[in-house]
Structure formats: C-alpha cells, structure tokens
C-alpha cells in the first residue's frame, strides 16, 4: 500500500506545475515554509534517536488529525531508498541534506503536492506550501492553516520574546521563509541583474541560482527569499515579499520590452534556434538544456513561440533532472547516457505538443 503510494507520487510530477497562475511567465513557483519545534523535546542537533522517533510519531499522529492534510500520505524515510529520496529532493519535497541523513525522519505529502511536511529535518517540523506562479498570500494562507490545525494537537516551542523557537538562530521568530523562483533572462541579458540583486540584498532578501546540478545560475532562474524572521510579522513579510518581487518583475518586463524593440530579429533568431536544437538534439547536458529552455520560455512569454506552453516547459524542467531521467528510463545511467536520454525525452515532449 505505502509502496504503491510512494511510486505513484514519484512517477507523476506535481499537478500544480501545470496550473499557470499569476505572472507564471516570469515566476516558476512560489514556496512558503514555516519552521516549528515541539516544546520540551530536544532539537534535532542534540536529540537522541529515541527522541527523534517519538517526535516523528507525535507529528504523524497530529497530521492524521489535521483537516488540511486529509488524504495525505506519510513516508517514514527509513523505508525509502536513496534514489527515491533523490527524486523527492529534485521535486523539492525534501532537502538535499535529507537524502543522506534520513534515519528517523519523515515526510508527509498532501494530494497534489501543494502542501507537505518534513519531519526531523533541521527543525522537528517544516511545513511547506507550493504555488504555481506568484501567489505569496495563497501559499502562506495554506501553510498557516495547517499550522493552526497542528496547534490544536501539538505544543510548539515558543517564547513571548523570541517567538517560535527554532534549531537555527536564523529562523527564530515567525519561522517563515518565503521564496519565489523567478525567470529573469531580460535582466541577465542587459546586465541589470547585478544591480537588482544588490538592491534586494540591501533590503535583506537573498538572491541565488535556483536550478541545475552544478554551481552557477543556470537557465536564468533565480530564487529570491526573505532573511529576516524576527521582529517582522507574517503579514508584513508576505506583503514585503510580494511587493519586492513585483518590482523585480517590472524591471524584467521593461528589459524584455527593450529587447523586443531594439533587437527583435536577433532575439527571435536566438529563440527559434534554441527551439530547433531542443527539437533535434541527440545529446543535451543539463546546463545546455536549461539554457535552451530558458530561451524558449522567453519566446512563449513574448508570444513568439505558440506551439508549446509554460506548463510543458515547467514539467520538462523537473523531468530532465538526473534522478528523474533515470526513473523515467528505469535504469541507472552515467552522464553520457543521461545526456542522450535527456535529449530523447525533450524531443518526444516537444513533438507531441
């Protein structure tokens, strides 16, 4: 039963990916996370195995009673294999750290993967909510409702002075982290991305690359997140993030307009070439694929490419990650074979559309 549920979860990418949503041409997804710990239990840094299992079971029981998690599944990480955990990590349902350190940890996933809970990661409880496009309020409301549900059956570590107490001092207070995964090819192209990130850092937001196997910003995807959790209420954090992200999107739209006005033929050529390569290549490493998808995504956003859509491209971005490919083709593959399969998969997806 459990195994079947897990298989179904792994094989089907989250339905929210295809939902579109506000500003989905520029925002791949919004994620909101709340960190909570159980009062009287040691944090994961210091807790013995026996205490961690207690926490895991307490949280599992509380989740079973939570109305917003009705129909969800709970995975005991001890029962999962490493490839399975890697897929969950590529799907952003668990952290990369949890792939390696998994004993006595758990994961609950609601139907559709919009809401999930990591148990005994850095904090006892990490509630996560995903939305397609820009939807900070919706994502926060969903996660906050689950927090209310659990507040009835669990006693959270809290102090009047420091708020929700977390295992790391960087999350204390609201325990709230809002992130938007944004696609900014226009700002990368005109070089303003540096100024924009400096501006965001100035207001204590972090900006970093959000995809890819390696080190760099790949495919012009960035993740913008808040850093301050203490002394700023949830509603102010949500409001701030929403307005800062919208400002960035405005800059990106202006950059795209200028590009269209000043270099339309060049831009169209670049986009169509990228599309041509994606439809015909026989080998694609993930960095090249991401770069090409970025160009086609821009083409879709500008109305230049019309025979494929954002939901296809979003799904492709998830499926061409190394572990997802190996699951799809049901075998362990080296880098060369992966590059071949990646090209095969992309060709098949873009032809079908």
């Amino acid at each position: 039963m459990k195994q079947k549920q897990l298989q179904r979860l792994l094989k089907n990418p989250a339905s929210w990916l295809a939902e579109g949503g506000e500003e989905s041409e520029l925002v791949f997804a919004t994620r909101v996370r709340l960190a909570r710990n159980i009062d009287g239990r040691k944090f994961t840094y210091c807790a013995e195995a026996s205490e961690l299992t207690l926490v895991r079971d307490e949280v599992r029981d509380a989740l079973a009673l939570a109305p917003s998690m009705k129909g969800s599944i709970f995975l005991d990480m001890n029962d999962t294999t490493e490839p399975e955990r890697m897929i969950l990590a590529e799907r952003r349902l668990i952290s990369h750290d949890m792939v390696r350190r998994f004993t006595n940890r758990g994961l609950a996933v609601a139907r559709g993967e919009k809401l999930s809970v990591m148990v005994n990661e850095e904090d006892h409880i990490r509630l996560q909510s995903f939305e397609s496009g820009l939807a900070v309020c919706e994502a926060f409301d969903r996660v906050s409702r689950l927090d209310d549900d659990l507040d009835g059956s669990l006693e959270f570590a809290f102090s009047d002075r420091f708020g929700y107490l977390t295992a790391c001092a960087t999350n204390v207070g609201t325990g709230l982290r809002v992130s938007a995964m944004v696609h900014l090819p226009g700002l990368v192209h005109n070089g303003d991305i540096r100024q924009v990130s400096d501006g965001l850092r100035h207001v204590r937001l972090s900006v970093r690359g959000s995809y890819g196997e390696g080190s760099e910003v790949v495919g012009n995807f960035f993740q913008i997140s808040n850093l301050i959790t203490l002394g700023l209420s949830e509603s102010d954090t949500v409001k701030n993030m929403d307005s800062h992200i919208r400002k960035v999107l405005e800059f990106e739209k202006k950059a795209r307009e200028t590009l269209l006005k000043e270099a339309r033929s060049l831009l169209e050529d670049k986009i169509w070439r990228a599309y041509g390569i994606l439809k015909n290549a026989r080998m694609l490493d993930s960095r090249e694929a991401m770069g090409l998808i970025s160009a086609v995504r821009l083409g879709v956003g500008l109305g230049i490419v019309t025979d494929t859509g954002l939901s296809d491209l979003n799904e492709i971005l998830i499926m061409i990650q190394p572990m997802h490919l190996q699951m799809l083709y049901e075998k362990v593959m080296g880098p060369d074979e992966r590059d071949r399969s990646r090209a095969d998969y992309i060709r098949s997806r873009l032809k079908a559309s």
Partner: protein
Amino acid sequence: MICQFCKKNNATIHFTNVDGNKVVKIHICRSCAEAKGFDYLKRSNFEKTDLLAGLVSSALPEKGGARRRCEHCGRTYAAFSKSAGLGCSKCYDSFGEEIAKVLKRIHGNARHLGKSPRRYCTEKVHARRRIRALEDELRISVELENYERAARLRDEIADLKKGMEKR
C-alpha cells in the same frame, strides 16, 4: 589569500566542500561567489558554518563563557557559536543576552512580532505586543520631530498600560 576562481581578488570566503568522498577547500572572493550563484555555497552549508559563525563568535561572552552549557540539553555556547544551531528551546534562556545580541545582528531585531500559538493568545499578550509596536512608532515620531503624533501615541500607550494593571 587569492581567490582561486578569478586569481585576482582577495578571497574573503573560505569553506570546505564535500564532493563525493573528496574534501575540497574553496577560497573565493565575494564577486566570484555572487557570479557563481549562492546555490553552490549553500550546498556546502556556507551560510551557516562560515557567515553565521562570524556573526555569532563576535558576540562571544566574557572569559570562560564559551564553555557555558545549557543545563537542559548540554549544548555549549562554543558549539552554538560554531553553527548558530541550538540544542533545545531552553538554550534560548540559557545563553540569555548573548543570544539576543546574535539575533539582533542577524535580524536587526530581537523581539518577536506576529503569530503565536493559541495558548499564548491571551488579551494581556496582545496588549503587550500592541504597546511594543506603539513604542516603536513613538520613537520614530520623535526622531522625525512629529511631536503631535508622538503625544497621541504616548497617551494611547498610557491608556493601554493602565488597562493592563486593572486586569
């Protein structure tokens, strides 16, 4: 030390990265770190182990303080200052004012504002929070020399405080 990527700037960020079963030491300058994206750094837990350690250790307590322990979980202040990680909720009391200093440095603030568990949602707590928020506004009004507004805020705070004593 010179940045190993641009071989030009001074490397200001140093961390250890585990690549498979190989341990790699990385020395990188700020601009290369930013150009390469923070993903790389985050994977190696850069944020926590290096950046935060700096923030925390500079707030280290007086002599012998580093050996101080949380009675409840046994975590030492030294361990906290290395990772910014705490052992249990009581650590926040055990390391008292030092923690407040660290939090102030990280967040620019050392007092919670926002949601609280239901068991804390008493009227008194609400009033206390409201007072705190008004006091902040009052301070700003005085700084901006908006004395009319400041006077109004002062009255409101006094009323709230009176109300709390009665209860």
